[in-house]
Each structure stands twice: as C-alpha cells, then as structure tokens.
C-alpha cells in the first residue's frame, strides 16, 4: 500500500506532494511537514554515509518501522523521490525508477511550464502521477480499508 509521496529538489524545496491512503495526519501544515521530512532525510543520509562500512553509490535508501517503510530515491541531479508504504511492499526501488523514467522525465522535464526549483502546477503531471501509482501492484488501497 502506498501512503504518500514527496518530491524534493536539491535545495530541499518541496516540488510535489500527493497522498493516497493516509489514515493519520501529522497535525502540522504540509510545508512544515515537508521541512521536517527533508531534514530527516538529510540527517539520515549524512549519518548513513559516515556509519556505513562501505561506499554508498546506489542513491537509494529505505528504512522500516513496525507499521511503515520509507523509500528514498536520489538521482545524480539531486532530486529526491520519497515514498511511504506499508512494510509488505517490496521492489519499490524499481517502481520509483520507473516513475522517474516514465512520469518525471516525460511530463516534467519536457514540459516548458515546469520550471526548475518551482513547485509543479501541471494538472497533467498530477493526473499521470496518480494514475501510475494507482495502477501499480503496490497501491491496493481499497482492499485493506
């Protein structure tokens, strides 16, 4: 099950946010939540880099708690795709790579109205993103409610 999805640029600006089956809200505004999320990822990245016994070159990290898993895909250009899912979902890395190739590159990079470092306002991107998530095998929101 996919709960929500953030896209950050390399400066930490929130470019895009969407949520699906999110049962518990954080109680703070979306902007504050995004700042917290980015800060956490930033710290985690530097922590993992220092603590890791080997070099990390993958650009992909995830962690799991009892209830959820958080997946981070970072591209070479510094974009961060962050997805919260349930703990049973596997293969999110490939899924996020596919998202980058099929949705981000097509509907953001090739859209003249999506400017760098600006939140995405394109309705088409939003629709395609929603469709892509809902079609995936991970989505399955309805079954579990």
């Amino acid at each position, binding site marked *: 099950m996919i709960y929500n999805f953030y896209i950050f640029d390399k400066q930490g600006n929130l470019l895009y946010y969407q949520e699906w089956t999110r049962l518990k809200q954080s109680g703070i505004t979306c902007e504050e939540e995004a700042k917290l999320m980015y800060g956490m990822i930033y710290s985690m990245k530097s922590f993992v880099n220092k603590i890791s016994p080997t070099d990390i070159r993958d650009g992909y990290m995830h962690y799991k708690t009892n209830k959820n898993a958080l997946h981070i895909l970072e591209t070479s250009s510094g974009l961060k795709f962050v997805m919260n899912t349930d703990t049973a979902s596997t293969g999110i890395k490939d899924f996020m790579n596919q998202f980058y190739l099929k949705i981000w590159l097509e509907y953001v990079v090739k859209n003249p109205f999506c400017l760098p470092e600006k939140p995405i306002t*394109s*309705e*088409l991107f939003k629709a395609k993103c929603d469709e892509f998530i809902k079609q995936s095998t991970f989505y399955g929101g309805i079954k579990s409610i």
Partner: protein
Amino acid sequence: MSEDAVLEYLHIELVNYVLSDKDVKKNENDLSDLEYIGFTTGYRIIERLTREWPRFKDELEKLKFICTDFWSSIYKKQIDNLRMNHQGVYVLQDNAFRFLTRISSGTQYLEHAPKYVAFTCGLIRGSLLNLGISSTVTAEVQAMPSCKFHIQFNRT
C-alpha cells in the same frame, strides 16, 4: 530515444528565446519570427525528404505526403485526419501533437498553446512552398494535446 528529446528541448528553448526579446518588439504575441524559422526549416527539409519520391500528381498527393511521411519523420506519428472544409481550406488534425502532449491534456495552459504551434505552421507553409504551393497556414487548439492546422491556398 534521447535524440528525439533533443528536438523537444530545443523547440521549448526556441520558443522561449524568440519570445523573450519583448522590449524590442513591443508585442508579446508576435509569433511571426517563430513562424519564419519554421518556414525556412520546412523549405529545407523537403529537399531531402522527397529525394526518393516520384513526382506528385496533384495538390492532394502533396498534402498526403505532408500528413504521412513528412509528419512521421518529424513528429513520429501521422496526421490523424485530413479534411477539406466548406471554405476550401484543408484541415490537418493531429490528436496528440508532439509539442503539446507533455504540457496538458485539457485546457490548463491553453492560452500559451499558440506559441508551441507557430513553428509547425511555418514548417508546413515552407514545405508546401518548396513543393510549389503558396499557402497560409494557421493553427487552432481547442483542448490540448489536439491541434488542427488550417491550410489556405493562395490562388493567383
């Protein structure tokens, strides 16, 4: 795959660049430069594309060539519909025009659509001229990514 993307990025920047000299031109909606760049491009492309083609019999054959081979060499698809309307104007309809498919699928950003079709209007006009037809080409976008090009022949 990536070589196709180059045309798209270049076209986006072409539109940006040509329309960014607003101080000089005083008119934001002046698309004639874009159209002219398309015109000269179209004129040149025809030289190469028609090399292995037999001579065209009439105007309709030339238009069909534009709709099929010419269109697919540039936009990777054929024109979806070619019609003649009641005023004697040919109408070429592309239901998924390549320069618009990434922008919107509806009416968002519709006011900007003319900028992204002006180059192609010129492209059609230039190629038809090199095939011996003088014409005026305009475009009409009601809902993206669909686009209609109207071709009016200039009879002398």
